């Protein structure tokens, strides 16, 4: 696998607090990688280490095979970044900011710049102080997408965009990916992650909790099953991997570890299945499961 971002055992401390505590992250060339985690999990810190703004205390970090701290400027020719909180010089117009950032990245594609401004419906003559949060984000997005780069690092890039603009953004990322480029996308908008990302890393408390394709992650968690049966079911509780069983007459609802789904259905078969719905976990459930680990543990006991 041709790895664009390779982080292993990354540790970053701020005084006594440990922001990152052995984080791992791999992003392959050509993939859109979702970077998920609760507020304060260390996503932005990781990104700032990748950008060479912060120095790692331990672990290895490589970006295009090089050290992002030492070779920051050189590496930045190949990437563009959109921060979560876009702050722009209040007395510069949006157009000026786009051109400045583009030129500092080593030039921007004039045609794409014009098209993007059109697509994002951005007024480039307004002073940055008068832009709303969404419009500031558009300025940073246009500057990033119009640059000739192979990697986008996006920190909650759509948190201020309306649904129409979010659709425009999604389209742009698809095009970027079609060119064989990579994206690291931190986001809390799970529909967006499901729609765009090939692989996902979920982090919590400065460590990687889970990483893989969405299908792989689903496999690790539970599927909810709801069935109507010919005879009242018994003994579902004792099946391995089955949780939260609720039986009401002929109806049974339960959750099952996805690896045990086959065995559970086989057991249900003995009672004669009339209707069956089985739902793979949504990303949201995956999420809640990792974020609310302790909540889940309490439920089980």
């Amino acid at each position: 696998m041709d790895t664009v971002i390779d982080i292993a055992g990354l540790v970053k401390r701020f005084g006594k607090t440990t922001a990152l505590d052995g984080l791992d992250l791999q992003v392959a060339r050509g993939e859109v990688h979702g970077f998920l985690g609760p507020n304060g999990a260390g996503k932005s810190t990781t990104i700032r280490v990748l950008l060479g703004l912060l120095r790692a205390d331990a672990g290895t970090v490589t970006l295009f095979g090089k050290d992002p701290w030492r070779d920051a400027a050189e590496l930045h020719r190949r990437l563009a970044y959109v921060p979560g909180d876009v702050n722009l010089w209040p007395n510069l117009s949006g157009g000026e900011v786009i051109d400045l950032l583009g030129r500092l990245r080593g030039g921007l594609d004039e045609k794409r710049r014009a098209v993007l401004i059109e697509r994002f419906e951005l007024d480039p003559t307004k002073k940055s102080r008068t832009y709303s949060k969404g419009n500031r984000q558009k300025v940073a997005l246009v500057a990033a997408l119009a640059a000739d780069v192979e990697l986008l690092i996006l920190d909650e890039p759509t948190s201020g965009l309306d649904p129409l603009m979010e659709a425009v953004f999604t389209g742009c990322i698809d095009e970027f990916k079609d060119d064989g480029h990579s994206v690291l996308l931190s986001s809390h908008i799970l529909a967006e992650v499901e729609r765009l990302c090939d692989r996902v890393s979920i982090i919590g408390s400065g460590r990687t909790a889970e990483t893989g394709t969405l299908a792989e992650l689903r496999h690790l968690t539970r599927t909810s099953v709801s069935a109507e049966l010919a005879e009242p079911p018994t003994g579902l509780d004792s099946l391995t991997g089955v949780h939260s069983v609720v039986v009401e007459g002929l109806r049974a609802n339960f959750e099952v570890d996805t690896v045990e789904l086959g065995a559970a259905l086989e057991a249900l078969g003995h009672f004669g299945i009339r209707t069956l719905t089985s739902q793979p976990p949504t990303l949201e459930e995956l999420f809640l499961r990792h974020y609310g680990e302790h909540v889940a543990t309490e439920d089980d006991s």
Partner: protein
Amino acid sequence: MSERQRTNHEAGTAFTGTSTLLRFHLRRDRMMLLWWIAGAFVLYVSQAVSTDGLYTTQAQLDKAAKGMESNAAFIAMAGPARALNTVGGQVAWQAAAFGAIVAGLMSMFLIGRHTRAEEESGRDELVRAAVVGRHAPLAAAALICLIADVLLGGLIAGGLIAYGLPAAGSVALGMAAGLAGLVFGAVTLVGAQLTQSARGAYAITGAVMALSYVLRAVGDIGNGALSWLSPIGWGQYMKAYAGESWWPALISVATVGLLGVLAVRLFDRRDIGSGVLATRPGPARGGSSMHTTLGLAWRLQRASLIGWASGLLLGGLAFGSIGDDVGDLLGDSQFSQDVFGQGGGTLVDSFYGVMALMLALIAAGFAIGSVLRLRGEETDHFAELLLSTAEPRWRWAASHLVIAGLGSIVVIAAGGIGLGVGFALVTGDSSAILRLFGATVQYAVPVLLIGALSWLGYSVRSAWGAFGWAVLGFCFVIMMFGESLQLPDWLMGASPFRHLALVPAEDFRLVPWLLLLMLSAVVGAAGMVVLRRRDLA
């Protein structure tokens, strides 16, 4: 009857929440207030202590007073000479002008931080969405400024009375400081309605303060008429310890009232978040200056550079236009000869040597502010976006340092040109242009050093950039009070300005000048090494 009731009712709702906001401000500002007020208190009381320490007999004080009274340089810097043969008169003379500036700066930052800065950041919106009357934020800001200035004036008066100075004079002196603070606070309140940024409001107030200082300096040396146009002058016309005159306080009070009404009128006419001076649309494309961070740094700093350079040019012109009159004022008293005769030059030359030094110290304010743009760029997260491009960290920092360095030279040169041209215009002595220009411009080197120290502080830790202000404050104290406080030589020598010759009274000394230049370069380079190792916010 309903008319009256409605008015009362409206007034009540417009100020709802004022007291809550005020308590909140006091909570946020208590440390800041403590430092400002304690600083002002020390400024005044230390003058009383040092005067008593310096002159043990009345005869000594009489003799010194005689000399000071005819010293134009001191009068230009401090104020009109009154009752200088008393401890009170000495305190009033030495501290009043600077006390007014200290109170003014305190009030400016208080008002700015609770009005325009809050609005700019969007926090004001959050507050106004609560049960808060339309005029409550403005009123709370005005009230905290009032409280701070009353405390400042009251403590000065109380401290001086407790020290044993006459009560009436002490009260007049404290009132003068507090009232000056209120006037400049009210100016800030108006400025905050005009501009859309706190920086803009500070620039307006800073300009008014500088103008007030220059007007009273020129007025005090001349016939005193111009001093009546200056809020600092109004305080000094209260004649603390010299047959107090109370009615000039009314001018200050009336001015505060008028400015307050103007601020409210302007506030009522504008939308929250906008200024009276509207923001025009900008260019759709980045021009040729926006190709590099140097271009960006120039764009971000040019307005401030132009402001500082014009300010120093005007200040220089004002001091320069005092011309030969200095000679008459200085007279031939033995004291003046002692103080100013040291360099071997004439008294006029000595006077202009001190003026050049003062212009340079003011210009150092630009150097520090300009260097600290880096800190602003970092904490506002503009740097984050810039440094995610191919721009190396050192070049981003260097861009602002280049503007700071060259800008400081331009600002000082503007002061020097003003001084020389002003003098030449009045006296007809055109050779003075080059002489006074050179006298001023030589100080570019210690100013660069102060800028470099500020930069080194910033590069170690972003908040430590303020170190530069501490250095400047120290140099200022050394220049103003070093002699009168009889500070030890090693301490005085810590001010880089002390190592240069007082041109034109003395001959330019090249070696210390070159050494300071090299030191600035070393400190600057050290900052670069340190910044490259630091985490950026």
